[in-house]
């Protein structure tokens, strides 16, 4: 009777020691990616302000016309940096959740935590996939617009 109850486990897919060690390594490197991404966002903002101050000094010495075009360029740059960071933060959040929940789940053998961890793993790839689709659609639109302008 006891044997009969244990038999299905033998044929079920398991998180065995081998799988667990691989998942733990995945979570450790995911955390590395999360940390480097966050530091990268801070550096991107610092770089923006550094360039802004350098261009500001240049425009002060060159006059009002450059100052006007400089204002337009920096505001559009800031907008693109903010959008990139927001999207990046979303990806970083999913990766962090995957890393922390799955690691905790594997160490505590908690199915609940592992389920949440792998849901975030799925969400991470899903968001990248959707971003790629948007990028392709946008890129195609820009390409067709350029071709249409070129043919006129």
């Amino acid at each position, binding site marked *: 009777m006891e044997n009969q109850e244990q038999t299905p*486990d*033998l*044929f*079920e*897919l*398991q*998180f*065995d*020691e*081998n*799988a667990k060690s*691989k*998942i733990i*390594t*995945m979570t450790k*490197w*995911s955390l*590395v*990616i999360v940390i*480097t*991404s966050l*530091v*990268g966002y801070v*550096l*991107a903002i*610092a*770089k923006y302000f*550094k360039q802004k101050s350098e261009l500001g000094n240049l425009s002060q010495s060159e006059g009002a016309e450059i100052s006007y075009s400089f204002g337009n360029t920096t505001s559009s740059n800031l907008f693109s940096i903010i959008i990139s960071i927001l999207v990046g933060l979303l990806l970083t959040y999913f990766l962090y959740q995957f890393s922390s929940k799955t690691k905790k789940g594997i160490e505590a*053998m908690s*199915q609940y935590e*592992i*389920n949440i961890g*792998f*849901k975030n*793993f*799925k969400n*991470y*790839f*899903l968001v*990248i*996939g959707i971003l*790629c689709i948007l990028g*392709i659609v946008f890129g195609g639109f820009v390409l067709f617009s350029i071709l249409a302008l070129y043919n006129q």
Partner: protein
Amino acid sequence: MEQNEQLFSFPVETSTQRSLLSAGSWAFFLSILGFVFLGLILIVLIVAGAGMMNAFKTLTSIDSTAAAGLAMLIIFLVFAVIAFLSLLLFRGASLVKRGIYSNDQAVFNAGLASYRTYFIVYGILSILSLLFTAVDLFIN
């Protein structure tokens, strides 16, 4: 020994399997995009390779042999990294899927190994990218 392993193992629940399958579908899609992108790079290189090389030579003001060598090295590195990451995603997604559908522990573990290598390579690349950004910000 086997009994010990059984003790510390636990089943992959249906909900986790579903998440892994869904993640696998998106990872598979991304790997295919990676391969398509590589194909596009190859086509562009064949069609406009010479023109690009001349532009690179003019921009960097390096003599033609060194410029060609440097450009080839950069293109080869980008190509190799994208190909390797795409291959790892492709392998991870397909092996985990096959492992789940056929209840094959070895295939499932091989898929996880591919995902693990993907994250290691991605992690190393992000560290390198961060270092380059820091150098660019603080030194240049």
